[in-house]
């Protein structure tokens, strides 16, 4: 084969803008970003090899079993809950016809906008002893304290329900996509081979969707293991709350990092599971033409049942808590919206916008690197840079604070010896490391979105533009940017909203006098000032709706093979 057959060689030979950036600059740049993003992982992993200190052996003997047990029990419960809700709603909305189905297809995603700590304390406020529900029950039946049994929201079971209600959309999204992608022929073949509708679902549709469902479940469980706000509020001892306690309470960074490493081990099992599932999903594609799905018409009682199955998670996971928040906000709004609150909101918005821009710029660099130099080290680097989504917030915070603290102290000592003055803590406790942490955590979503946009710019388009005499930057401006604008904007929005909602990493790493909406809402709620926290919480939920709308729009647009009428 000739040298020209190698696309990298073609790039090197091509004139213009790209030549000034030498090919190796891409590789080097991608690897630098990848290493920076991997820094917290490497730090935490390094502590596995450290000799265990006293605190660690104390933890092992006292609370570790409880952390593991609670975290796994929570994950198990949320797994069952999200599976039941996600798969049933996905099946009903894709395969059956009943009143409201069209609305449910997108509305079922709404709970994604609800951060788990907010839903947790909203339900606590509604269902605890002083809450409206119990008060009403007591008023109706004339009960008083101790006369009756009422489930305690602030329990492991309560946490399972809360998290299932906001995390089922992951399973719903992927399962629904899988059901829609399945060739209807596969189901019809099963019918002609003697299966009734339920049996066809159990023996064909469900196994075909299994990889997608497994991927959705692993995402939901990753979120569950990383969960901090809700479990802390419920007073449950899990890995994440344990890491906090060890770091702040016992002051032992090493032991906290070792706890983090164990948690990370569990998370990576899930990451592996998700990867394997997605790979297997390739083989689970039924080939060929899509027949328009002829949704089963349900009888009136069946349709009522289907409506209830879809309406219940939507009501409990979104409508009811939002209504409660709105009711509180109406009462406390005038008192809470002060100049300080506006300063807080501005802080949050600036921080989120800055972090989003930085992250997307880095993501664009990674995506272009992978396109210009599709070599093994570059692809490996991009993949490593996209691992951040799996790192739970508290783990991330520890993995960043430890190396930066070391850097600050070393620099300070060196400067004091050699330059005669102290630099103090240069980076720790600044907005810089907060932005760095966000970039690490949310790089995945940004890279995926930018890569999807860049995929629309086919190499032949570059060549076509070049054949008209455009080169380098003008190709970027005239061809790439117009095509990718939507994807870049989406990436910025996704990261923006994620940063706005982020709680645990911000809680640990924020500068002393610096507060965000999420942190403020959580602090107020932790002080039992639930009603006062509602304005901030509602603001977060409303911004959280943006990506939900984006996702549901892209779903309706990309649905394959929907046609009407006879063949």
């Amino acid at each position, binding site marked *: 084969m000739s040298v020209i057959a190698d696309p990298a060689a073609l790039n090197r030979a091509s004139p213009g803008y790209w030549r000034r950036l030498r090919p190796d600059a891409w590789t080097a740049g991608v690897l630098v970003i990848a290493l920076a993003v991997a820094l917290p992982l490497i730090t935490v992993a390094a502590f596995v090899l450290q000799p265990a200190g006293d605190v660690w052996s104390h933890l092992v003997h006292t609370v570790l079993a409880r952390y593991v047990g609670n975290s796994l029990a929570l994950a198990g419960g949320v797994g069952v809950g999200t599976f039941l809700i996600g798969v049933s709603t996905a099946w009903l909305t894709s395969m059956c016809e009943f009143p409201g189905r069209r609305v449910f297809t997108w509305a079922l995603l709404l709970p994604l906008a609800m951060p788990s700590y907010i839903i947790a304390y909203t339900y606590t406020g509604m269902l605890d002893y002083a809450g409206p529900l119990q008060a009403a029950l007591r008023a109706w039946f004339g009960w008083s304290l101790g006369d009756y049994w009422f489930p305690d929201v602030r329990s492991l079971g309560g946490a399972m329900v809360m998290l299932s209600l906001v995390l089922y959309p992951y399973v719903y999204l992927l399962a629904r996509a899988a059901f829609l992608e399945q060739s209807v022929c596969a189901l019809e*073949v099963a019918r*002609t081979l003697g299966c009734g509708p339920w049996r066809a679902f159990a023996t064909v549709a469900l196994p075909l969707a299994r990889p997608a469902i497994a991927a959705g479940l692993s995402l939901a469980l990753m979120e569950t293991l990383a969960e901090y706000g809700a479990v802390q509020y419920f007073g449950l001892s899990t890995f994440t709350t344990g890491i906090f306690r060890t770091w702040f309470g016992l002051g032992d960074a090493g032991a906290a990092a070792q706890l983090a490493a164990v948690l990370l081990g569990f998370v990576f099992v899930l990451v592996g599971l998700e990867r394997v599932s997605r790979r297997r999903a390739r083989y689970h594609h039924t080939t060929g033409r899509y027949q328009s799905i002829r949704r089963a018409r349900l009888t009136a009682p069946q349709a009522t049942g289907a409506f209830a199955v879809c309406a219940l998670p939507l009501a409990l996971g979104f409508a009811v808590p939002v209504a409660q928040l709105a009711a509180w906000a109406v009462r406390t709004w005038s008192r809470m919206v002060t100049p300080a609150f506006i300063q807080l909101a501005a802080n949050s918005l600036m921080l989120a916008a800055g972090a989003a821009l930085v992250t997307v710029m880095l993501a664009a660099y990674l995506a272009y690197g992978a396109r210009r130099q599709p070599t093994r080290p570059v692809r490996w680097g991009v993949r490593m840079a996209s691992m951040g989504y799996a790192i739970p917030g508290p783990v991330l915070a520890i993995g960043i604070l430890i190396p930066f603290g070391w850097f600050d102290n070393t620099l300070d000592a060196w400067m004091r010896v050699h330059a005669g003055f102290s630099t103090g803590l240069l980076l720790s406790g600044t907005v810089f490391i907060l932005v760095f942490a966000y970039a690490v955590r949310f790089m995945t979503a940004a890279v995926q979105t930018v890569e999807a946009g860049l995929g629309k710019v086919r190499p032949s388009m570059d060549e076509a533009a070049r054949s008209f005499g455009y080169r380098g930057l003008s190709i970027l401006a005239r061809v790439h940017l117009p095509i990718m604008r939507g994807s870049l904007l989406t990436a910025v929005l996704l990261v923006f909203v994620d940063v706005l909602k982020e709680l645990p990493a911000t809680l640990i790493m924020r500068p002393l006098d610096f507060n965000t909406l999420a942190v403020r809402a959580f602090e107020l709620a932790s002080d039992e000032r639930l009603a006062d926290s509602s304005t901030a919480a509602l603001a977060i939920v409303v911004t959280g709706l943006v990506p939900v709308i984006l996702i549901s729009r892209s779903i309706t647009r990309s649905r394959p093979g929907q046609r009407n009428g006879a063949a």
Partner: protein
Amino acid sequence: MAQLELSGVCVRYGHAVAVDGVTLSLETGEIGCLVGPSGCGKTSLLRAIAGFEPIANGSIMLAETIASAPCWSLPPQKRSVGMLFQDFALFPHLTTAGNIAFGLRGWSRRAIDERVEALLALVGLEGMGPRYPHELSGGQQQRAALARAIAPRPTLLLLDEPFSSQDVERRARLAQEVRQILRREHVTGLLVTHDQHEAFAIADRIGVMSDGHLHQWSDPYQLYHEPADLFVADFIGHGALLAADVGSDDCLETSLGSIRGHVPAHFRAGDPVYLLVRPDDILHDDRSDRTATVVHRTFRGADFLYTLALDDGEEVLCLSPSHHDHPIGERIGIRLEIEHLVVFARAA
């Protein structure tokens, strides 16, 4: 015994009529085929027979029991009707053997194993049982899907455009293979296609459909030589329709001269008609006095298909051996040799 009997079947989607009053029947072991342009309703009819579409009128009988009637329909799983889809629809989560065994519910383990082995051998996939569908080639997937469809010995096998994903050259051969397999298993089959060559290669009976109507249901020979109406004459095979007038005592006056033959009794002398002239009805003969001008020619290897202009401008097709090479514009001698007249009414 009729395995399939349709009488007056209508399928509607809302107000759109997809199938309009189709009547046909298939005897045990026969292979039938519905051809027609896309959108003619043949797939809707197939889906109604499988039980996926309700019918608005008429009835569908399978093995002499009622399967569909207006407002009543036996569910697909109880019909014992196999279906072979265009995209094969093999289950990717099951092995080839697992796919074939899928419909064998209630069979003993040993009976299943024996049946699966026998079918794998029948379709030429010996030893492929443990493979997954994505490890098979396209042709192998098709044969696996066929084996799966006939495994439970269905009353009737429906084949929905089964060869359309294959190369054109392979279709006829595949159709022959499938025909032999169905014959050996004594399966009654009904196939849907838009490709008449496939239909001729596989079917004992062919139906031509358009706009939901079944124009003709007969054996291939009859379909080609005695098309029931203008649509069938035009759709099946090559040919030209020549304007003609009915003369006295079994004779037609055409621009190719006077042609003797049997004219159907309901035409009277002087009626304007069309005469169907197939390419094999017109022989190229250098010694003939009658000539026509070559306006188009297609070299097909073994023969030439000439389009010839007659003196009054009408065009006919002529098939001639490949060594008769004539350029466009040349006048060549032709001779008419029509065995029987196919005549349709023509508006004057």
